[in-house]
């Protein structure tokens, strides 16, 4: 039995290894880096003013979490602003894929600190940028600038010493080091949803699927808007009595969250998962007015998109268009050509 179990274990781990280390497209990994980097740049630019005001709140509201745990007192606002602006510059370089061996880890770590300190260490932990930070860490510490990057263009032309901080160019259609980072980016998304699903089942058991809890969460959020912002969305009042709809939504949410890891196993399951989750987040926005921007605009799911195929199709587009135009403009010539 021990021998059979050992063989089964060896076979299982070999299958997991083959799945995880399947060569992937450097173009896809590069595209994920560009999309995530561009979003980070936009986000840091959007919140530079708001978070600089947040960090000037009274000290008793300062509750450091995550990588800011070591701080006993808030930082000077000027220092925070400097770090935020540096992170913004690094995010631009991260997107461009410039000097990536240095910029990648620096951008990931500094963005993590800035988002943790400015956005989440002042009496309330938001849950909107968690997956973004995880993705930055994965992309920052993996060879994500092997394609679609300044490094891929410059490194072969630079002297060896100057090329040291540059990422190694990966010109081939597939590469053994470009597959697993994409899978890891996907896994971060799937595990985050799995955690949310487990939390629901742990707190309320499978009774969470009745939908009462979901309805009450939406109503409570509406009450916050009523009493703090002067008015909830009209839809909050309209949907309160839709018991069957809430049951369907609760079951659907739990199935999607607990089943999220399956999205890694098959591309079509991945597409279905991505479209469903984008729908869930737009629903949350519609009913509760909460914007999970990273998920709402689909950026969180960038690793599920076959960018390499889309980029190839884009590259072929002029030739395809030219062919179509020729057929439309010179049908007679085409017919003559076919007769020949």
């Amino acid at each position, binding site marked *: 039995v021990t021998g059979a179990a050992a063989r089964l274990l060896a076979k299982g781990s070999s299958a997991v290894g083959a799945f*995880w280390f399947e060569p992937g497209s450097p173009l896809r990994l590069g595209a994920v880096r560009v999309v995530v980097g561009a979003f980070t740049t936009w986000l840091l630019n959007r919140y530079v003013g708001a978070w600089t005001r947040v960090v000037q709140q009274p000290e008793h*509201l300062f509750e450091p979490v*995550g990588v800011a745990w070591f701080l006993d007192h808030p930082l000077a606002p000027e220092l925070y602003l400097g770090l935020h602006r540096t992170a913004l510059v690094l995010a631009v370089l991260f997107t461009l894929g410039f000097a990536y061996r240095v910029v990648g880890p620096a951008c990931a770590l500094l963005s993590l600190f800035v988002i943790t300190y400015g956005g989440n260490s002042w009496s309330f932990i938001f849950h909107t940028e968690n997956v973004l930070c995880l993705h930055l860490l994965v992309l920052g510490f993996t060879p994500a600038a092997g394609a679609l990057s300044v490094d891929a263009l410059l490194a072969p032309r630079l002297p060896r010493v100057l090329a040291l901080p540059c990422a190694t160019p990966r010109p081939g259609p597939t590469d053994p080091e470009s597959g697993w980072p994409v899978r890891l980016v996907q896994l971060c998304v799937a595990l985050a949803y799995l955690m949310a699903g487990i*939390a629901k089942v742990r*707190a309320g058991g499978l009774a969470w699927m009745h939908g009462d809890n979901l309805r009450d969460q939406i109503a409570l959020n509406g*009450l916050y808007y009523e009493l*703090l912002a002067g008015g909830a969305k009209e839809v909050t009042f309209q949907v309160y009595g839709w018991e069957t709809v809430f049951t369907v939504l609760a079951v659907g949410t739990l199935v999607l969250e607990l089943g999220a890891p399956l999205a890694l196993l098959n591309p079509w399951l991945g597409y279905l998962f991505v479209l469903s989750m984008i729908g869930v987040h737009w629903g949350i926005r519609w009913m509760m007015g909460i914007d999970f921007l990273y998920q709402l605009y689909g950026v969180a799911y960038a690793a599920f998109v076959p960018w390499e195929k889309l980029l190839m199709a884009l590259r072929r587009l002029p030739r395809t268009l030219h062919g179509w135009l020729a057929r439309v403009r010179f049908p007679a010539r085409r017919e003559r050509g076919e007769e020949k």
Partner: protein
Amino acid sequence: MLAGEKVVRMTVGRVYAVILSVGMALAICSPLHPRLRGVEGDNFPLSWYPMFSRPREEIETLTYVIGLEQDRTRHIIHYSLYSPGGMNSARHHIRDVARSRKAGRATCKHIAKGVAARQKGPLSRVRTVMIVRGKYRLAEYFGKGNKQPISEVATHTCTVNRESPSRETPDDLLHLRHLPKGHP
């Protein structure tokens, strides 16, 4: 080795990949253990996403700020007048502030000052600012449209002085159970 079976050779790069992959996966799953959820019971970016999971109470208690006109007509004071963060941040802020006599007084004065600066709209008629703690039944509020609180207690009260800086009224605990125009 069986025919067709793939063998994954362990290179330095692969060892790094395994460490990073397993490390990230374990870190993301770590909040499953209650002791690894951080001091506040949640953390960032490693969270167990408890926000939609906790069963809700039938009666919810909230702290918020209202403004009263001369004839006791009431208005909700927007959270942006007392917190530079978002609404959820403001909710925690005002709840914590209301518990402290000193911080509550300072915040109340700060809000009254902000209200006093308003020259147009309903806030320009507000004479009194109150930080209140109210209890609400969700089913009544959203199911039946009854927006009256079950009970409401003012923890801090300030007058809005448009001529000179605002001052706090001495009655810190003012029961508002029977306010004539109690619609938030």
